[in-house]
């Protein structure tokens, strides 16, 4: 744990230094740039609240990918599951007339249902035709993309809008701000806590983890790995769908063209950077959100283009993923050296 934290923090520092070097090379002032970046993302209640709100889709899709990958399920369908969840939640918000206390939970359930159903298609294809979910989830992303694009120009289109979008959802389905923070942040944290609990305390979570490491062992041990596969697909689909629902309910309050943006791909990237750790996914998700959020503000007060955040993210991914292995082997090697020296100085002592 301490080692992971150390390698994460070292990686972030090195990446920021490399980013600074790049800004210097372009003639920008890195200190002022970083100051602006974090001023608009971390320092102060409002920037922090924005960072948290923007982190919701990153963290949830990242969590979806982390849980799937750690269970040995190659679910790469978060982009499609996100938009399907978002669309289904939007439909709930458009056609149900209920008080907020009922509508919000129902829309959230619909979002999760949408994502789970879409992931369920891939799970079904795997179970019925032995089709690799690696391919089918990727392909289903395309279908979901075009399906939602059709839905918002066709049957659910807002004819008065300038760009493809649905009508706004019922006000009762808008997530309010509480103490500056959007309520979607609370739902995200609940989802993190919930999935952590399932993954680390439920029997099912135990079986998922073991299957992810060695599915043959799990199978021989009596775990129903087929059932577990389907469950993991549905659960991770639901997480990605939830991301879509919360984006709609917290932000534009309608399904717009391009709603999914790059959230899910960033989320998958975050899962990889986090090494499929659930808490690590939350932390890296928040950090990536801070960079993305701050970049927009930074552009306002410095000459540095906001695209520098993309460069920073890319450098972060490379440094952290490459550095993780390197750092841990280096630390191991240092420990081995110490041990060897101790063994030589104390040749009669029993080694532990």
């Amino acid at each position, binding site marked *: 744990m301490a080692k992971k934290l150390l390698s994460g923090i070292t990686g972030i520092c090195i990446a920021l230094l490399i980013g600074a070097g790049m800004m210097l090379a372009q003639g920008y002032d890195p200190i002022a740039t970083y100051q602006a970046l974090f001023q608009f993302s971390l320092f102060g209640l409002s920037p922090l609240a924005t960072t948290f709100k923007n982190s919701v889709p990153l963290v949830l899709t990242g969590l979806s990918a982390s849980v799937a990958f750690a269970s040995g399920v190659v679910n790469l369908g978060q982009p499609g599951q996100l938009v399907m969840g978002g669309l289904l939640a939007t439909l709930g918000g458009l056609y149900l007339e209920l008080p907020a206390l009922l509508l919000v939970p129902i829309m959230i359930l619909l979002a999760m249902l949408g994502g789970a159903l879409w992931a369920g298609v891939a799970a079904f294809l795997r179970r019925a035709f032995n089709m690799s979910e690696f391919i089918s989830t990727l392909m289903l992303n395309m279908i979901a993309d075009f399906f939602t694009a059709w839905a918002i120009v066709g049957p659910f289109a807002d004819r008065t809008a300038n760009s493809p979008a649905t009508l706004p959802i019922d006000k009762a389905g808008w997530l309010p701000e509480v103490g500056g923070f959007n309520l979607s942040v609370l739902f995200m944290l609940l989802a993190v806590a919930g999935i952590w609990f399932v993954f680390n305390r439920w029997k099912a979570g135990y079986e998922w983890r*073991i299957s992810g*490491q*060695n599915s043959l*062992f799990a199978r021989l041990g009596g775990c129903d790995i087929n059932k577990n596969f389907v469950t993991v697909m549905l659960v991770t689909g639901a997480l990605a769908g939830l991301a879509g629902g919360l984006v709609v309910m917290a932000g534009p309050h309608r399904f717009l063209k391009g709603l999914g943006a790059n959230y899910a791909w960033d989320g998958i990237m975050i899962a990889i950077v986090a090494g499929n750790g659930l808490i690590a996914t939350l932390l890296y998700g928040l950090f990536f959100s801070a960079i993305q959020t701050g970049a927009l503000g930074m552009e306002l007060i410095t000459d540095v283009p906001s695209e520098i955040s993309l460069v920073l993210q890319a450098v972060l991914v490379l440094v952290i993923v490459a550095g993780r292995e390197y750092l841990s082997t280096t630390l191991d090697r240092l420990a081995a*050296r110490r*041990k*060897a020296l101790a063994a030589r100085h104390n040749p009669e002592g029993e080694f532990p």
Partner: protein
Amino acid sequence: MDDLILMKDIVKVYPPSVVAVDDVSVSFRVGEIHAVVGENGAGKSTLMKVLYGLVPRDAGEIVYRGKPVVFHNPGEAIAAGIGMVHQEILLIPEYTVWQNIVLGVEPAASFDRLDREKARHLVKEKIDEFQFNLNPDALVGDISVAARQKVEILKLLYRNVSVLILDEPTAVLTPQEIPQLFSELHRLRDDGHTILFISHRLEEVLELSDRITVMRRGRKVDTVEVGTTNKEELARLMVGRNVIFTSRRKEHTPGKAVFRVHDLTYVDAEGRQRLHSIHLEVRSGEIVGVAGVEGNGQYELVNSITGLIEPSSGTISVNGSDITRAPILERRKLISIVPQDRGKMGASVNASIMENAIMTHHRLDSRFSLWKGLLLNYNQARTFTDELEKRFAVVMAARDNLFKSLSGGNQQKVILGRELMLPSPFVLLDQPTRGLDVGSIEYVHEQMLQMQAEGRAVLLISADLEELFLIADRIVVLYRGEIVADLPIENASVEEVGYLMLEGRGLQRDGQKAS
């Protein structure tokens, strides 16, 4: 005699803190066969890998031909004349013998083309020089394991290596093939080669070598001349106590039939028939051994029992209930399984010891359930792991450590413990002592006798005839997917079973056609 190689104060620590070789000094002389023996995890392979440049040392010095040397990789060691043959044979099956041998140092014709004629000729010369009975044009995929091993040795000789390191060369050979290897090794020694030989089979070591270095827990215990020692002394040096070598079997009468295989047939996806009408019965309190050269249907038999493959026809039953097509969890209520590959099937090496210990129990034993079986009771899991640690004398630092941090013997103890703590009437053991050291093997054997005493039915699949004769009440021989013999141990001899394994028919029945 001169010291050819002197290893001084060698220390190797596998990160983070496994001291594999702990301040070992040993010398090897010109023209000797020097065995390095020890239990698994004693550090003998690591010591040799340090010499060969495969594993960097953390401290110490190697003097070779009077000069201190550092080999950064095996290539440098081979260039200096030191070569190693690994346990697993690393050849290209689609290539011929000569192609495999010249691979990497091919004689070149003009335009850097491979000079096939010359290469083949050079290899043929080497084969003749060392009187290896090999056909240079045979495909490696077609020749026996023993011949492949010769190719490996020849590969090094072709590179003019004068020091040969062999890592458990007999582990892959049948009993009949070992004498030939030994006579070839003796001839190489007489030619002036130095042979370093890793083993934990004491008889072989005594037969083959001139000097023996015994290692225990990373340290060198002693180097002894062969003439001045015997098997019992070596065993004592290796494990630090006396090991019993006589048959462990006790007189007893087995009870009712527990495990039954009736007319089991398996045809694989390519249409090859792997199992031919197998009939097998194991009674309670009985240990039945399955002998056979690997690849004669053991894999299919085991997987049909565990449920990883579905047999084409026939039935398998335990205590009268038919499990031929039952889900694996249903089988696990009746069958304990110790699979042959600890890392692939027996455990998840990157999970904690505790997570490995509770597998299967977590589904079958209600004490691991909370909230109507939704939650895993981690308190009970901890208690259970401690119980297993105590009952099976597992040496471990903490139950939350990774499974792979355990030594091979302790890994097997955890697996064995987990399986024996299931209340199943039938135990399936697939090569349960493979790769274990003498002490751990003895422990596994003791546990088998314990199962027998508890009245369980035990099916033991083993490639080690000595083990089968030590433990089993009955031996069945698998040959090309058929059971060709079913012998009570009193009526069986090692030679006969060995012959049955290779030929599919018995010695005395020569002339009669096998069915």
